[in-house]
């Protein structure tokens, strides 16, 4: 990218969690994560590695799970973006979020928003994943606190609940 393009200011519109947001005076090189956090006031997605290794910034773009740190915000124009803030209504928890509470799957909570988005993506695509598929699906979401065991238990609980195996 040449300096001229990099420093050019752009204005565009993003649709995040069903709401239209105007983005004004952004640089072309700004990541979706930066724009969500710093321009749109949606800091739920976390920045923990800025290179797509940790998954803390996981969001859905047109239903595809991405690391928001690796997506240029300007390329997400016209797409449906879903962040952790859009998984449940105000004051509510989604079934995945509830299962995380019940199973003790949250500790410091910094990886949690990205993980929750990734789990919604997994169970949306694969209603009945095997343990291996679950481990693979969340292997892009690093957690330092939990050792993953309680997270796997939470995912399994949502899986069974959605399949009607649990009340």
């Amino acid at each position: 990218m040449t300096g001229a393009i990099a420093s050019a200011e752009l204005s565009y519109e993003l649709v995040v969690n069903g709401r239209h947001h105007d983005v004004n005076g952004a640089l072309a090189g700004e990541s979706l994560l930066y724009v969500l956090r710093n321009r749109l006031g949606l800091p739920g997605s976390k920045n923990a590695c800025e290179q797509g290794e940790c998954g803390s910034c996981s969001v859905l773009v047109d239903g595809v799970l991405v690391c928001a740190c690796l997506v240029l915000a300007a390329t997400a124009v016209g797409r449906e973006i879903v962040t952790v803030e859009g998984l449940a209504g105000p004051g509510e928890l989604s079934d995945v979020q509830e299962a995380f509470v019940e199973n003790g799957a949250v500790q410091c909570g910094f990886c949690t928003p990205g993980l929750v988005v990734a789990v919604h993506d997994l169970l949306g695509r694969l209603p009945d994943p095997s343990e291996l598929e679950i481990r693979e699906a969340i292997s892009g979401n690093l957690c330092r606190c939990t050792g993953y065991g309680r997270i796997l238990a939470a995912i399994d609980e949502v899986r069974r609940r959605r399949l009607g195996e649990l009340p």
Partner: protein
Amino acid sequence: MASSVTLLGHAVERSEDPPLLTGSARFVADLDRPGMLHAVFVRSQVAHGLLRSVEVAEAAAMPGVVAVFTASDLPLADLPEWPRGEPPRAELGRPCLARERVRFVGEAVAVVVGSTLSAAVDAAEAVTVDIEPLPTVLDPLDALAERAPLLFPEHGSNEVLRQLTGAAGALDGSEVVVRGHFYNQRVAPCPLEPNGAAAWPAAGGRLDCFASTQAPFRLRAAIALALGRPEETVRVVAPAVGGGFGAKGGVYPEQLVTAALAERLGQPVRFVETRSENMLAMCHGRGQVQEVALGARRDGTIVGLEATMVTEMGAYCWRGPVPFSTSRIMATGPYRIPKLSLTSIGAVTNTTPIGPYRGAGRPEATAMLERMIELLAAELDLDSVEVRRRNLLAPSEFPYAAPSGASYDSGDYSAALAKALALLGYEQVRAEQADRRQSSCATELGVGIATFVEISGSGSEYGAVRVEPGGSVVVLTGSSPHGQGLATTLTQIAAGMLKVPISTVSVVHSDTALVPRGVGTFGSRSGQLAGNAVAHAVEEVLEKARELAAVELEADPDDVVQLEDGSFAVAGVPSISLGLAELARRAGGPIGAEWDFAQESGTYPFGTHIAVVEVDTETGKVELRRLVAVDDCGRVVNPKIVAGQVHGGVAQGIAQALFEAVRYDESGNPLTTNLADYAFPSAAEMPAFELGETETPSPRNPLGMKGIGESGAVGAAAAVQNAVVDALSPYGVLHLDMPADPERVWRAVHEGRRDGQDPFSSSS
């Protein structure tokens, strides 16, 4: 919902979780203020050198740049040598911004403040740092050698700490002596949230600082000292903190600089590390060379231990003394080792400073002992379980005065061992192993045991409880939780003892403006110290309530009892009772009490962890098949929270045993500076853990609690390491340093090391 003392011991759901799950919790990087400026540090790219000049003019003239500071424009007192020597050794201080000399790659040299983050990042690139390189020293043993390059020439040596424990002759009377030379490798704490701080001038001349810290009161004291302000003019808040593991328990130069910038510029300033900066600037953990000899009689009874532990300090004697001293205190572990001769040395090198990381000296001591037990068992041709049984302290021996000076409180170490063996099905696994060895299978099976004791809960902690006339209960704690669920634990203690619904209790913490004093969360201290402080405060509240009720009910206080519903009545007349809130209303204000709780000395959690691994001898890959962890942390308030702590600690222990190592090239350039190069394990690498527990209350606090924050990392690493060595024992392998990554394992298989020396040991 249960609302009585039966709350203790129940897996109450964490009240902390919903804001974290929905993204509404606020971490430092999420805090915004109008006019927020952004600080970016210029860091040394040279491991050791003389700082000739720092040219900032070009950077300062760039658009969006507010200011650029070096040590000379932003004079701040050095972070003192710690623990402070007597007399203080000023030459060992750690500067906030480097002066004259740089000592590790990543050391802050200058700071750029921009109106936007990108402006500050760009300008930081334009600062020219002229460093005349000096010879580097990276290995702690090299650092101690004669004619080694000196990091602090005024000090005259790279040895900054030395302590002798016990006396010579520890091996006298031994019939057999086994020896080991181990390196407990340097690892990176890697909390998901890197370090960060934000500060701004507040009303009344106060400076408000928000930091990702485990110890706000400690940071407040340091900021006040650095800026020459009274402590009451500084407020420190730890907002949501994304993990610390000990690494956020100390004061960092970048935090003090951020506070100084806000004061100097009179505007809000925020600093947040990138991950690459975090891998350089946040302390590393472990890093200890061990030269060990264990003497025993032929029946396996230990006679004495002789050891030298050389703990890396990294570039400064800053927080490395924590693992230095804890590994010394725990040097004889759970065993009856009558004689100890220990030399503990701290050495500075041109690497990131070492600090406490989950376990902080305990895992080093445990790995050392558990490897030695295995070597002794191999030498005597005994099952190592039998060697452990013969030497573990018995319940009747407590309180036990260890040769290091530690005073163990209580324990039944053999019971934890027996429970873990039963959970595993030890005999069956050994039988499977024997079958495997009979076959020509290239995948070997290994079983590794670690029996351990660790130390928790030193110092004191503040707690307060207030019952409001409206019925709400406010708990204050001086601790500063950051993921442990302490607010839920304290809620259970307060609600249980007050016999009120947990929904009425709120916990205030991590804000020096709202809590009068405190320490913080580290060293597995908060549950027991903050918990007992709150319990004491509750007892006082109950006593005050009883007296109030006695007046209202026109009875003698001794005749007033608390009923199961939490209200107070005259004994035998439960029909006329007064609730806590009603008593507060009648008293015209809240009923409150506060307490600073300290215990006579630490408490000593213990347990046994057992790992089963499969090692592919053709590729060197280790597969962890099972991990059994039996832990004893005394009385448990919330089993779900305790299990979570074990899970996390065990995972970090496994990570050290199999995957992680901080690496440098020969010039001191770090090679593991992001989460791609540093082998941070994912869900794909972790097995399911099998947990068990025994419960031996501590006599040192009324609730009988011990810490559980670190045990997982203490036991699991040694268990997995032992399992890998066990798997390779048919190849004559007697020892393998961590991490047991495929290359190291493959080499061990193919080189058949029979001398107890690790093929990779940095100092063999």
